[in-house]
């Protein structure tokens, strides 16, 4: 036990000075590391490059070159059936981007819809999966829990099962007269036709409360769809995917939290217990702060992953448009409509969005750390 790296005592105390100090420590260590590399002989440098060259080569061929090609394609009208450099391919400037962002029309409307659907997916999945994963990790980390191994395996299982298989099962469960609706009927509830119901759950709730006519201000259009539609909430189909994603990914993140929890020394927890902390206080003020790095990692991975959701949508998507996401839309307009330029433009807008969201999140986390 004593060989485990103990938590930074200052950070544990939660003082701003401590946090700053510990950051400086880490920075210092990194600088020292870099310095050592610079001092190495030229031969070692060559050897180093030689060792990383296969990985670099793979990155170039499968990432850098395709990305550059995609940037080029997003400014053309390439149809995908010739070489992208053929004479029949014309440069179209920013028109692929303009038809998504500024020109009213179906492209903009679909892009807006996909952004809205995905936004609600992110807003629901990220907090839900993080909370569930953390809770599961705490539960299976309990030393007094019997059959811990079994529970860990059971909770992790959905993560290692093929997402295609799970989605197919969900499609069956959530059919109009599927198992879920049959169970709901036992309780006297008539379930919706989940995957085909394009109404947002917030607007359905408002309808049930007697609000039928959207207020005038909500008719304003943003990215081709009205504010009322932006506020409509996830569709019933999207709710199915939210449940599915929360269930499948929480296992993976549970593992990350579990690893972090194992790093928490029991002595610290015992000490807080002796100091008279309740179990909630112990979790909130002792355990949780020590899980911060894991929490940041899980949130970052969660934000990036949820903005790229594709496979589940592909399986559900062809039936209807109740679960559109930019990643799926990009694929659809490229391969079904042979408008690869437009598809590439969607991909880059999605990329920009993910970068911005991640930067904002990092900024927030940083501020939180220094306070």
């Amino acid at each position, binding site marked *: 036990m004593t060989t485990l790296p103990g938590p930074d005592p200052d950070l544990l105390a939660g003082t701003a000075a401590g946090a700053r100090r510990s950051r400086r420590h880490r920075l210092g260590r990194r600088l020292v590391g870099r310095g050592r590399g610079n001092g190495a002989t030229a031969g070692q440098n060559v050897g180093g490059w030689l060792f990383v060259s296969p990985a670099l080569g793979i990155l170039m061929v499968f990432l850098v070159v395709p990305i550059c090609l995609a940037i080029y394609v997003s400014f053309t009208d390439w*149809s*995908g*059936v*010739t*070489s*992208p450099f*053929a004479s*029949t391919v014309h440069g179209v400037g920013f028109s692929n981007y303009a038809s998504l962002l500024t020109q009213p*029309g*179906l492209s903009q*409307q*679909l892009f807006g819809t996909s952004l809205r659907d995905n936004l609600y997916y992110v807003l629901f999945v990220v907090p839900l999966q993080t909370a569930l994963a953390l809770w599961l990790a705490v539960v299976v980390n309990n030393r007094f829990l019997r059959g811990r191994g079994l529970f860990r395996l059971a909770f992790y299982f959905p993560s290692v099962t093929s997402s295609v298989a799970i989605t197919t099962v969900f499609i069956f469960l959530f*059919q*109009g*007269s*599927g198992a879920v609706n049959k169970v709901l009927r036992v309780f006297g509830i008539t379930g919706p*036709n989940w*995957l*085909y119901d*394009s*109404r947002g759950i917030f607007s359905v709730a408002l309808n049930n409360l007697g609000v039928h006519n959207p207020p005038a201000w909500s008719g304003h259009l943003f990215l081709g769809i009205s504010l009322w539609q932006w506020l409509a909430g996830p569709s019933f189909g999207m709710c199915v995917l939210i449940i599915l994603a929360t269930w499948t990914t929480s296992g993976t993140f549970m593992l990350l939290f579990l690893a972090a929890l194992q790093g928490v020394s029991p002595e610290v927890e015992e000490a807080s217990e002796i100091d008279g902390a309740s179990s909630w206080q112990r979790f909130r003020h002792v355990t949780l702060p020590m899980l911060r790095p894991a929490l940041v990692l899980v949130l970052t991975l969660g934000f990036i992953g949820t903005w790229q959701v594709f496979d589940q949508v592909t399986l559900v998507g*062809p*039936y*209807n*448009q*109740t679960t559109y996401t930019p990643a799926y839309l990009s694929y*659809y*307009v490229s*391969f*079904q*409509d*042979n*408008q690869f330029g437009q598809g590439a433009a969607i991909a880059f807008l999605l990329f920009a969005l993910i970068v911005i969201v991640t930067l904002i999140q990092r900024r927030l986390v940083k501020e939180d750390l220094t306070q």
Partner: protein
Amino acid sequence: MKRATKVLASLTLAGAMTAGLSTGALASTRVPTAAKITLTGKATGVKLSLMFGSSGPAETAAVKAAAAAWSKATHNQVNVIPASNFTQQLDEAFAGGTPPDVFYLGSQQVETFAKQGELLPYASLVAPPKAFYPALVKAYTVNHTWYCVPKDFSNLALEINTTMWKAAGLGAYPTTWSQLAADAKALTKNGVAGLDVGNTLDRLGAFFAENGGSYMNAQRTKFTFNSPQNVQALDFVQSLAKQGILQFPPQQSAGWAGEAFGLGKAAMATEGNWIIGAMKSSYPSIKWVAVPMPAGPSGKRGTLTFTNCWGIPSASKNSRAAVSFVKYLSSYQQQLRFANAFGVLPSRIAAATAYAKQNPSVAAFVAGTPYAMAPVPTVGFSTVQSQFDTQVVNLATGGANPRTMLDQLQTNAEALLRP
């Protein structure tokens, strides 16, 4: 269920990429000019590749057998590639500069491929256009050039469960909308819907055609989605849907109308001749009959047709052998073999007539050919259509309005024609 989903998948695939034919009346077809082309490569000792999207094991086996027979007779080799994701794999092969020598191609894509100069206009070397149904030739004609030989086609018809029909004490099969509505109403009971119609333009369009409506004008220069005839047709569909006597597959937890029909959840369905194979293999106990689609108030008959052609890329180094292969594949005898193997209708008029004579069950499907309407060929229409299809299921609850849906469809489609 699994099988039906598969059939559906292949249908959607076929529908999506075939999306063939012209729209509007099929009779008037200008004879296309014969293109001057030079064939390349030798006639024998050549290795060809054939890529296709298969509807199932029966089709794959039939295509493989045909390829083997031709290779043996002409001392060539054919590498048969059944694609799992056909459109995507075909695009990849073309973009990579290694297109297959022969491939399936729907006319929605013919425009894309032809305009990029990727397609060899070999068709007139194989047979004169008059050997095929005019509508099919027109479907593969871009800018007056007939590009490829139509492979086969499928039409929609009305399928009726005869056991339920007799139990309801009904007489003659419906030939008009009012009869259809009355019969469907009589058949709707005990959780069975009178009629199940796929929730897509590729099925509902048949009602447009029956009412004298269309997708586009005859010259294919303008869309006509929000015509009064189409609005009236969709209003008719909605009136049946609201009463629950017409239901869409998702309302019945079915992947497609054929599944609802096969499981006995619907007494009637409007599907194409592909349903024959599905009924035979998945629901053999159901007794049913197919009749031509009923006529609308105008007394006009109407149906939809879906088709594929044999494409040869202009970049093929062995186009001489490829043309000879397609000649074999689209011969009278071979078309009959394909038809018997997986239930498609031969594109040669003579072969289709003979096939219908041998198989009375397909007569109702063939009957629609003279007036059948084909899907919109315009590049980019797939997204526009899917926006329409999404709303179809809401017709039943009144959540969607036919007029608004068709106006939207018209606006979105018009945007495609703008340069």
